[in-house]
């Protein structure tokens, strides 16, 4: 369980949020640009310090811990692949960084799961967009984290690739029992992925709950707009799927 209460003030923006995340759940932080979503991730990861507040992971206060001791991995929007390291070197990086012996069996398992065998000796610049996503996610799992923080990981992808990766992310979450906090401004990702949804608006939490709760009790303000978008999107998707699927009674 991750619990947090965070306040952070800048001269033109202030963040004030408090929420909890259940273990092994897929959580989406949804909100417009500049709402403070990415800042929340950076606070959880330890790259920013809150002015006031705490972050508890499994009942342990990690607010003052440096990022490397939090067991929380962070995946930025541009994936942060190390351009000078081959895929294999990137995958074993978490072990080397912690001074641990590489767990070969786990490495082989991850390589197999993500289908990375043909790319192990390539540099990131030699990979396609989808391959880069897979390598970045695989590297996250190699660190055996308690929580994965994904900052708009699908935003640069085309629709087809995005849908494939959404399915892949769902499978990963189940297979590796991951706790994920995923930041996005795309309602489609919310519909397809979110078990729990947090809507952030101007540095404040305006909704927390699951998608059905959002549909049943739409809140006011920006969250209400999001709810309407989600309802519309869900109806469109259902319509699309009902036309595509064979009608065999």
């Amino acid at each position, binding site marked *: 369980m991750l619990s947090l209460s965070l306040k952070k003030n800048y001269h033109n923006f202030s963040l004030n949020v408090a929420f909890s995340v259940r273990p092994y759940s897929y959580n989406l932080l949804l909100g417009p640009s500049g709402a403070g979503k990415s800042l929340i991730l*950076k606070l959880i*990861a*330890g*790259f920013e310090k809150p002015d006031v507040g705490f972050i508890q992971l499994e009942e342990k206060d990690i607010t003052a811990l*440096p*990022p*490397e001791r*939090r067991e*929380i*991995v*962070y*995946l*930025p929007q*541009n994936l*942060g692949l*190390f*351009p*000078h390291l081959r895929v294999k070197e990137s995958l074993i*990086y*978490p072990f*080397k*960084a*912690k001074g641990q012996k590489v767990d070969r069996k786990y490495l082989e398992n991850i390589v197999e799961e993500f289908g990375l065998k043909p790319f192990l000796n390539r540099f990131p610049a030699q990979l396609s967009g989808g391959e880069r996503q897979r390598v970045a996610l695989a*590297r*996250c799992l*190699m*660190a055996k*984290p308690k929580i994965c*923080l994904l900052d708009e990981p699908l935003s640069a992808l085309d629709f087809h690739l995005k849908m494939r990766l959404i399915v892949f992310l769902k499978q990963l979450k189940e297979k590796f029992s991951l706790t994920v906090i995923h930041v996005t401004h795309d309602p489609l990702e919310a519909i397809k992925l979110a078990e729990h949804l947090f809507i952030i608006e101007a540095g404040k939490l305006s909704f927390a709950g699951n998608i059905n709760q959002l549909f049943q009790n739409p809140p006011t303000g920006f969250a209400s707009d999001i709810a309407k978008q989600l309802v519309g999107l869900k109806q469109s998707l259902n319509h699309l799927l009902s036309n595509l699927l064979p009608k065999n009674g």
Partner: protein
Amino acid sequence: MVLRKISIGVAFLGGLFIVVPIFHIFVTLTSKELLLTLKDREVWHSLFVSFYGAAWATVLGCVLGIPFAYFLSRCEFKAKRLLESIVNLPVVIPHVAVGIALLSLFNERTSLGRFFQILHISFTDTIYGVILAMSFVSISFVISSALIGFNNVDPHLEMVSRSLGASAAYTFWHITFPLALPAILRGAVLAFARGLSEVGALLILAYYPKTAPILMYERFEEYGLKAARPVTALVIFVSLCVFVPLLHFSKRYVKS
């Protein structure tokens, strides 16, 4: 089309402007002059002092300049812009003035000079003075290049590294430094070249041991142009042999 022809013409003139003076030195040199210069021990000694001094000056510049550039790149503070401007001061100050400033600070009568004398280090007319003067005039190249190198490293890479379990030091040595290294190397090569060509500050602070440019200047002053030419040709030849591969290597490293 006309613009293209003009630019080719101007580029050709620019190339000639650089190549002709260097080429001219070699074609006016007689084999007898060259042979005499090759046998001149003072010339070889001055070349050794130049390269030895410039190499140590580059090392000193890197040891001081790289952490300084990293600090400038990663820290935000009020006087940052001022400090970034100060970095370029050694390039814009006349080098004779640099020599006078260094001599004023490090001569044996100042407390700093006396402190170094306890360590048996004197800067006037010694190799230490040569290294000090060369370091001062060339450190800006290391800092500026390293600053560009560090600024070009995406901070997200460092964040990812830290979140994967790497300490700040591990992240610096395995992510930040390797990615900034091409720019740092290029700065080091330029600093080495700058140190090698220094005259003004050395005339004031450390005339002895004579570096190659000082020897050229001395021969020109005492015996005239004809006497200075063979030494100059040899120095240019050795410099080309050293710097063409160095610059080629650093460019290839940047591309890879």
